[in-house]
């Protein structure tokens, strides 16, 4: 694995009114590496992802992609995939169109038949049968919607993938299946991945590196193998799910 940073954040800050969510985030993710960001609810993990994507503009700091500030967001997004927490599938479109949505846009868009074929192939990759392609998202279970979201995220074989709480709301078995799929896909594609989660089983299954956010800053950043011996009371409390410790349970 290279040690070339694909994504670098320097002193990123974001406030919503008097709520300072990010207070200077310094973080980097190497090319082809999988970073998992952990932290309590409301610590700004999703805001961090949206700042990288440009959906939210940071108040201060720099976000570098391949060592340079992002000038062409369209170009970056064309090699990007994301699995959203709730799937974020388009209700009005059948599953195949959701999966192949990006590939049905623009001048080089795929024909309907090719898009359906590609969607079925991607659905198979995430363990779904071809007939699912012709159903609508509302007809699927939560776990199936997550898989469709995953199929959509990988449809254009992106070089950067974000996973926002990929196992939230799933039973432990389905969560394990999704974790394995994510790991396989990231390795197969050689993609750079950032995952945000509360789920420690996801952390151990997906991560190469882990960063913990607390109070708007990176509290700890290291290899996943070192997390149990981090020596940080905040990290220990979080990964062991203890009510007592330096992290206040009432926030």
């Amino acid at each position, binding site marked *: 694995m290279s040690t070339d940073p694909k994504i670098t954040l320097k002193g990123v800050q974001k406030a919503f009114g008097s709520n300072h969510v990010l207070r200077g985030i310094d973080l980097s993710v190497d090319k082809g590496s999988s970073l998992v960001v952990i932290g309590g609810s409301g610590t700004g993990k999703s805001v961090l992802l*949206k700042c990288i*994507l440009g*959906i939210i503009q940071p108040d201060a700091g720099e976000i570098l992609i391949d060592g340079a500030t992002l000038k062409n967001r*369209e170009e970056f*997004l*064309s090699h*990007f*995939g*994301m699995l*959203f*927490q*709730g799937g*974020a*599938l*388009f*209700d009005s479109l059948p599953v195949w169109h959701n999966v192949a*949505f*990006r590939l049905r*846009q*623009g001048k080089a868009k795929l024909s309907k038949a090719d898009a359906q074929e590609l969607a079925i192939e991607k659905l198979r990759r995430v363990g779904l049968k071809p007939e699912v392609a012709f159903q609508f998202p509302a007809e699927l279970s939560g776990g199936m919607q997550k898989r469709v979201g995953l199929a*959509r995220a990988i449809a254009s074989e992106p070089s950067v993938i974000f996973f926002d709480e990929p196992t939230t709301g799933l039973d432990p078995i389905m969560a394990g299946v999704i974790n394995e799929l994510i790991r396989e896909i990231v390795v197969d594609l050689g993609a750079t991945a950032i995952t945000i989660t509360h789920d420690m089983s996801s952390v151990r299954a997906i991560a190469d590196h882990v960063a913990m956010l607390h109070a708007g800053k990176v509290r700890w950043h290291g290899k996943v193998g070192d997390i149990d011996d981090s020596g940080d009371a905040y990290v220990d409390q979080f990964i062991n799910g203890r009510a007592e410790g330096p992290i206040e349970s009432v926030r």
Partner: protein
Amino acid sequence: MLAINYFTEVLASIGRSTMAMLAAIGRLAVFAASAISHMLRAPFYPRELLAQLLKIGYFSLPVVGLTTLFTGGALALQIYAGGARFNAESVVPSIVAIGMVRELGPVLAGLMVAGRVGASIAAEIGTMKVTEQIDALTTLSTNPMKYLVAPRILAATIAMPLLVLIGNVIGILGGFLVGTLRLDFNAAAYINNTVDFLEAGDVASGLIKAAVFGFIVALMGTYSGFHSGRGAQGVGQATTNAVVAASVLILASNYLLTELLFPA
């Protein structure tokens, strides 16, 4: 001293409300300008535009048709009763026609479409916002302003004049049915009176109003949806805002357009 403090507090409160209102108008103006600019620049989504034309135009026909049919009938009865006070019952066909074409057709269709389509647009886009579908569009290299907003506003601006044109015909038909079946007007004379009295400018002014009302309905629907709060309550509030704001703006702009098109 207490009175001065109270007075200052009242002034500050008025100032805050004024500033908040101006800020909201500013945000709406920026949103509208952005929507118009996205309508004019590629990529375009003709399939989305067609789908919206069908949804906004074709599926609003029954509600607009029924509204104008009954209004045309009621208008004929009212004008007949009012005209009878000074022996002017014969003006029923011409006043029904001009009333429908210039005012009631576009305004009633606008209000009905605001209720039906404005609410639906706000709820759909609001739900897409709270379920992160709009963020998903962005990550899939698709500009939500182009894909969601521009086709809806363009479709409503095109569909409303067509709806109003059909609504006008149905409204006049309502007046005709009441006039001939209930008020004993001669059918041929009723039609002749209607056709002779109406001018192209009357019809055109109603269609201009309709296009503006269509723009307003879709603009308020998309704007409210895009700025929807979280959860079911946020989407519900966005829907209410869309309908109320569109209805008020339709009535206000109707007055302004009437001043502009028919100066006293």
